[in-house]
């Protein structure tokens, strides 16, 4: 690769051709402030709009300053990052943004997590010299999942990059022009009237509180304080490897035991594991896959655990509704079992049971409200909170999370296998399904349960698994743009897969919109994935069908996988939706 000689603040250095000034400055430990810039190379997520003008530097021979995030180094370039001209311009850009931003930091949902706030602190801004008109638009609280507050939008366009380039949903874009501009759906529609999947990736990358989750913590507190209600909580696999980050634990810390103790401390009457629901999902999904393969059913079969993905294909591919598995997602399956099997066991009226889910996801909030997923007017899951919201509740309750003892999930819906844990990462659902399908098809014990060919971070992966005579061709996609590619192959009839796993968020649930903010650091998501696989290895049982409580559930209640009762409780149908 051709190397270029450049000079930054009198320091000579060599950089490969194509390096941006920003990346070059990192080599010499210069930290230029940035705001709109986002670079998650490995996921192909790059926001290089250079619109905030917070990273301006001086280049010799250029009449104006240049944005370091997007300006590519050229040979012999002489750059100054520390002169008063650059410093003043950078600082003033932040001041201007602040002059058009509400000053409600103390009660803002992003307080201490806000990139703009951090920037103001970093640049030592103590006064906003420029005062004047501010944006004044109504908040959009129409959806179950996310809240859009245009007045806090700084036009970094990160959400647009996620929504349009990565997820290919095209919901968010700039509306109006000049000072009146903000990011929102076309015709300024409410989010609920668009084909938004609620994947929450816009929330995950928003530097301010222009996009945040719908906060359900008050509802949970109310239920916990209602003596007539039996409040049951379930926690998704990806939560246990991320929640520690909210309490200053390093990324990738597995804190399952502490998390269970903390929930018990909050006063939940029973603490169950969505992993149990995941094991149940595998029982149903693997049976469905085998049934489709052996009976000439429609292939490939697509997984259906991810509610953002489900909503995506309902809007974008209404002609392919027969392809995804009919299985409900693990959280909804477990909710259904709690409201039936568990209620029966405990001799309780299902109406008195409140199911709270802790999820890494915003789409799960909307999923729980889907009319198809209620039984007798009774939601399978009543309230969904995110990992971040649980963190808020614990902080509010003055819980010393790091110092908590470890404890176990409650019986009878708290036992899980390693197969269910890996549901939290891309490739995990299909790997779990393969572990079970292998043994069911071959009637042999699967010795090596780890399928390396299904793992990794590539957007679209292909892995082949030999099961007896059957060569199972598996496709895996994470990110809805990648999912679209695979679906278009199916539409065109060129798809050669038997089964496809799709997760809407880059990295899978570990990178979900409800997780602690990654602030553009890919390493955090990688560490969470490593932790998920570690948690799998920590388990004695690593195949869903070996879960003794799952077996008991089928023996006592459901009969067999794909039985009539299982279909009634654990399967759903999809509804074609308009594409807006």
């Amino acid at each position, binding site marked *: 690769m051709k190397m270029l000689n450049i000079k930054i603040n009198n320091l000579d250095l060599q950089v490969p051709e194509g390096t941006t000034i920003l990346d070059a400055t990192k080599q010499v430990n210069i930290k230029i402030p940035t705001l709109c810039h986002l670079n998650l190379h490995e996921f192909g997520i790059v926001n290089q709009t250079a619109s905030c003008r917070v990273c301006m530097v001086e280049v010799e021979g250029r009449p104006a300053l240049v944005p370091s995030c997007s300006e590519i180094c050229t040979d012999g370039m002489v750059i100054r990052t520390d002169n008063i001209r650059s410093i003043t311009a950078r600082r*003033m850009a932040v001041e201007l943004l602040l002059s058009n931003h509400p000053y409600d930091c103390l009660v803002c949902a992003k307080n201490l997590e806000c990139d703009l706030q951090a920037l103001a602190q970093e640049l030592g801004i103590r006064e906003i010299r420029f005062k004047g008109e501010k944006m004044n638009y109504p908040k959009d609280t129409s959806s179950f999942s996310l809240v859009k507050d245009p007045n806090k939008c700084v036009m970094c366009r990160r959400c647009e990059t996620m929504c349009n380039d990565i997820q290919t949903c095209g919901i968010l874009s700039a509306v109006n022009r000049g000072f009146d501009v903000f990011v929102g759906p076309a015709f300024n529609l409410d989010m609920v009237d668009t084909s938004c999947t609620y994947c929450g990736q816009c929330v995950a990358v928003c530097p301010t509180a222009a996009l945040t989750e719908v906060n359900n913590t008050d509802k949970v507190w109310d239920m916990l304080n209602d003596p007539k209600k039996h409040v049951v909580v379930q926690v998704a696999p990806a939560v246990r490897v991320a929640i520690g980050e909210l309490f200053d634990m390093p990324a990738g810390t597995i804190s399952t035991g502490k998390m269970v103790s903390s929930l018990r401390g909050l006063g939940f009457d029973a603490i169950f594991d969505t992993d149990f629901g995941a094991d149940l999902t595998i029982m149903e999904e693997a049976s469905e896959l085998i049934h489709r393969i052996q009976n000439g059913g429609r292939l490939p079969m697509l997984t259906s655990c991810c509610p953002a993905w489900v909503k995506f294909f309902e809007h974008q591919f209404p002609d392919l509704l027969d392809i995804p598995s009919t299985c409900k997602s693990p959280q909804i399956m477990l909710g259904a079992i709690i409201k039936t099997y568990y209620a029966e066991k405990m001799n309780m009226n299902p109406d008195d049971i409140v199911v709270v889910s802790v999820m890494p996801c915003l789409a799960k909030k909307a999923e729980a409200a889907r009319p198809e997923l209620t039984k007798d007017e009774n939601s399978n899951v009543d309230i969904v909170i995110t990992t971040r919201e649980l963190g808020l509740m614990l902080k509010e309750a003055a819980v010393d999370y790091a110092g908590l003892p470890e404890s176990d999930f409650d019986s009878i819906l708290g036992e899980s296998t390693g197969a269910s844990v890996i549901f939290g990462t891309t490739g995990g659902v299909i790997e779990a399904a393969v572990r079970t399908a292998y043994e069911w098809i071959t009637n042999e014990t699967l010795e090596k349960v780890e399928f390396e060919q299904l793992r990794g971070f590539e957007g679209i992966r292909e892995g082949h698994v030999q099961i007896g005579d059957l060569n199972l061709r598996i496709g895996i996609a994470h990110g809805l743009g990648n999912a679209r590619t695979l679906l278009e192959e199916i539409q065109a009839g060129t798809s050669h897969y038997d089964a496809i796993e799709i997760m809407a968020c880059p990295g899978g649930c570990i990178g979900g919109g409800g997780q602690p903010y990654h602030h553009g650091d890919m390493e955090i998501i990688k560490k969470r994935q490593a932790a998920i696989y570690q948690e799998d290895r920590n388990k004695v049982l690593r195949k869903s069908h070996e879960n003794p409580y799952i077996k008991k559930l089928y023996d006592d209640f459901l009969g067999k996988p794909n039985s009539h009762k299982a279909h009634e409780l654990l399967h759903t149908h999809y509804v074609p939706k308009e594409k807006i």
Partner: protein
Amino acid sequence: MGSGGMIVMDEDDCMVNIAKFYLDFTQDESCGKCTPCRIGTKRMYEILDKITIGEGTMEDITKLRNLGKMIKDSALCGLGQTAPNPVLSTLEYFYDEYLAHIQDKRCPAGACKALAKYKIDADKCIGCTACARVCPVNCIEGKPKQKHVIDAEKCIACGACYTACKFDAVIRP
């Protein structure tokens, strides 16, 4: 004026007001993508507006200069980069007009309506009633062939009387 074009104006044109007019145009044309153009030109416009209604301070001049420099340096496209030019060049060549607005609360060209205070010179007025007839708010009193008087409270400083008077009896501040 910004684009490099040349415009001929006379003493009836207030340079602060002209600078404001240009920024109003920039505001209309701004796409809103980059911060300096989207918010910076808005703030410059607001400061100029403040000056033209007589509420400007000397600090505003510093702010205009700083903002102008930063926007020229940082805006993403040519529109934003040239937007502050009318302000910066009028500040350079017509600084006294800015000072008149800020310190004396006076618009030398009489173009800034909020600062304009029209009066009738009693020595020159012959009582022709031309001014009273064109006044849209009927604030000029006086019988034919007698001296006329403008009621400053009611006057909206439209300048109609100034144009109508053939005897230079209407005085503009």
